[in-house]
């Protein structure tokens, strides 16, 4: 547990800029005399348009979610609700041969991506129970869960002069899940014939339910993939531009369980014959079994959740310059995000910035960041792209990143 936390804290960095050789102002993180560069990055992001950081924290780290916390989230529900989470630690080593204009790199990435789209009634059913729906059905439309956990080992080439780079990686699936529930209602039938109304039926009308799941044992046992990552930089007048992509490729998943169903499931209590023992022991597991559709196992290709990114860095105006970053991760249900960092240049590499962000699941947020030299050859970038959740538990978006560049 502690080791895990230490790793999480240690590996916090901005995935939007994973393995970038560029600093905040677009300059290179190494100089002409550098022979090696070690780049360690970690980022943790939790974004939602409804769920607070406090509730997300209690999900991951435990604790009692109070009625008022549940209520605050409930007040924010607006029909289409989302959550997206990401944890992305990575380490890269780049070697520049003396006298050569390029270098070679080797990188390790671990990426944990989660997105969840859920209906208001699913939240109410989950956190309040079906007593909220005794008079009318719970509508469970447009619900989806995506989880993709993978690690990669990449080998790449770097143009020493421009920092443009290119990596080819082999990917190992750790876990993959896609679950979709649509056009579904859950009705709790009430018997009002006597003095005490009580539930006598639960009716689940499933429009569509589908799931695809594959989880891993050993390395490459549940899936192997290949992907490309890289960045290309160019300059027009005094403005710099960086175009990049991460994890552009596909993965072949083995032994993926695929299930889908639709129909009506009626539950009127478990049939019990006298003397058979209590059926209450496994009410829920039996219910789950009876609702679970028949599955099939297959091997299939899926696209990696590639991240497309583009940056613009303006010329300086006094001590300030602007940096605009846009990013969009494919295939996971994430939304595009655009940030504009107003950066104040300090001496040497050092800089601080404030960064309004639009898009994503949170629509609008503000970030703060800093870049500074710790030792002569060590650079650190740290901050948050979503500050509201960091300072306020009721905030719905939180992120922290940390990048350490060590020149040798």
């Amino acid at each position, binding site marked *: *547990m*502690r080791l895990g*936390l*230490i790793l999480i*804290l240690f590996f916090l960095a901005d995935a939007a800029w994973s393995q970038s050789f560029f600093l905040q102002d677009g300059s290179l993180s190494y100089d002409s005399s550098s022979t090696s560069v070690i780049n360690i990055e970690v980022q943790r992001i939790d974004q939602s348009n409804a769920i607070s950081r406090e509730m997300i924290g*209690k*999900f991951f*780290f*435990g*604790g*009692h*979610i*109070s*009625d008022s916390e*549940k209520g605050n989230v409930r007040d924010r529900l607006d029909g289409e609700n989302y959550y997206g989470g990401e944890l992305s630690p990575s380490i890269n080593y780049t070697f520049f041969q003396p006298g050569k204009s390029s270098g070679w790199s080797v990188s390790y990435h671990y990426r944990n991506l989660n997105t969840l789209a859920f209906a208001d009634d699913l939240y109410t059913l989950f*956190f*309040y*129970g*079906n*007593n*909220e729906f*005794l008079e009318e059905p719970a509508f469970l439309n447009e619900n989806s869960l995506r989880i993709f956990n993978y690690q990669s080992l990449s080998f790449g080439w770097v143009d020493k002069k421009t920092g443009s780079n290119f990596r080819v990686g082999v990917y190992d699936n750790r876990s993959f899940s896609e679950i979709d529930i649509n056009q579904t209602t859950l009705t*709790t039938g009430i*018997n009002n*014939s*006597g*003095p*005490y109304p*009580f*539930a*006598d*039926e*639960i009716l689940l009308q499933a429009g569509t339910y589908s799931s695809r799941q594959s989880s891993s044992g050993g390395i490459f046992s549940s899936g192997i993939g290949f992907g490309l990552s890289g960045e290309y930089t160019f300059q027009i007048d005094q403005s710099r531009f960086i175009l990049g992509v991460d994890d552009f490729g596909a993965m072949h998943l083995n032994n993926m369980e695929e299930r889908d169903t639709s129909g009506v499931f009626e*539950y*009127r*209590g*478990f*049939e*019990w*014959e*006298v*003397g*058979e*023992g*209590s*059926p*209450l*022991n*496994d*009410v829920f597991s039996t219910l789950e079994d009876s609702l679970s559709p028949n599955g099939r196992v297959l091997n299939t290709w899926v696209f990696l959740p590639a991240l497309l990114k583009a940056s613009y860095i303006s010329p300086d105006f006094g001590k300030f310059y602007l940096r605009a970053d846009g990013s969009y991760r494919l295939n996971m249900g994430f939304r595009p995000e655009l940030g504009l960092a107003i950066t104040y240049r300090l001496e040497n590499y050092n800089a601080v910035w404030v960064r309004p962000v639009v898009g994503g699941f949170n629509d609008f947020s503000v970030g703060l960041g800093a870049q500074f030299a*710790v*030792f002569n050859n060590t650079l650190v970038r740290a901050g948050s792209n979503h500050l509201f959740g960091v300072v306020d538990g009721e905030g719905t978006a939180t992120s922290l990143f940390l990048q350490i560049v060590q020149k040798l």
Partner: protein
Amino acid sequence: MTYISRMQRVVVFILVVLVLGCKKEPTSWNTSNSAPLINTSLGVYDLIEDSLLSTGDDNLVSLVYSNELINFGVDSLVEVEEDTISNSFNIFPVSELEVNPGQQFFNQSEVIDFEQVDAALRRAVIAEGSLSLNATSDIEGDILFKVFIPRATRNGISFEYEAIIPAGSLSAPGVLNESANLEGYDLDLTGISGTAFSEIEILYSLTVPEYEDNVTVFSFNEVSMEITFDGLELSFVEGFLGSEVIEFNEKAFFESIPELNEAILNLSEASLDLSISNGFGIDLQTTLFSVKADNSITGNQVDLTHSIIGSSINLNRAELHEQTPTPSEKSFLIDHTNSNLIDFLEVIPDSLSIQGRVELNPFGNISNYNDFASAQSSFKCTANLEIPLRASFSNLLLRDSSNVDWGEENQIQKTTFYLYSRSTFRADATIDLRVVDESNNVLINLTDYILDDLPPVIPGATGSMQETNTIAFELGETEMEALSRASQIFTELRFETTNYPDLVEIRSTDRIDILISAEVDAQFEF
């Protein structure tokens, strides 16, 4: 440098605080859910064991106790005991004999007479048993021991068996101990002449095996042989099976009788069908000296008085169709008009005792040796007691227990159980639900938690309409915690007909449908 060191210390401090402070505890929140839990339908067949009930054409249910009071099989009539042939061989006074390979130098024919059998058998089929061959030889060469029984056949082939008596010496004779399976052999027991009874011929011989060189037998050599019919059990016999008299004194216990001792059943409609059956191909004459009802708890005993007691009952021989006997039967219907059956049943017997005798072939060998007995043959006396459930129940008590294993549960704050019933029984049922732990200590009597002081009663039907009712039980956190330690739930239904006319009929179509639903306020944890 000082600044960096201070910053490092701060970072380390923050890490330590975060690591220690982020101790994982369960994630939890409060929920409130309602759901039906158990759906059951109880009929009289669910409450009383099926084997104790029967349904008439009018759906009226009767209590039925059926028990075999006597059951004698073929082994009670014919028993074949072990029988042995012993013989020995030597060449004295000849001093020496040279025997070539393949040459037989001794053979013998003998008749086994099953004298122990108290019958004149013409035929017997062996269900189980063997022929044991035991021999010793001091001849210095292997000897082949052959046994042949021409009139013992299986699938049309006569019994034949060969075994080697190993070479021996005077100081260390060769020993043979083998047995041959006789299962399924059909023995013609009419002897060599074909007109005798309980006899069979056996031929046996000694030969030098083909693989041996010449064997020299000296005057001092001896071969001893024993052939034994061992452990014979018969599946079929035919002949005259004798005129034996068998006395019997048997006791049969009832099993799984429901606790009816507080119910007032209408015994005037009860009947006892006493059935005696003869599955042997022999005429039988039986006499019942007494039939006694016994309640082992109260010690009460009543002898049945009926004209059958003390009378001789003649039973014709069974007929044989395709090797299967068709028994002849006599049945006697005993009720309150021709016996003391009401007194007999009022002791609520848990066993019946029967004493009597049965005589085989009371008129001699009138079948001319054509009696038979097979493995399916038996002499049986069966008692079938039927009490129609047309009764006045002051207190018909039915109990059941169910094992419970709740497993790991979330923290439940309050639960309201609803017991919804629909009954077509024309009797009210008072329900008692006790939850006990592994040591049978009562943890909760659920009926103590009924809301609004309602009685714990499932009301019976009125007229042809079913009666519906809902009882609610509210359990708090303490009671739910006690419930989580439960290992069994005892359910007791006490049927009362005090609100109904004199006699109430219980029909196979009568049911109590029960739905248990729950409303649970719980702290969900994971």
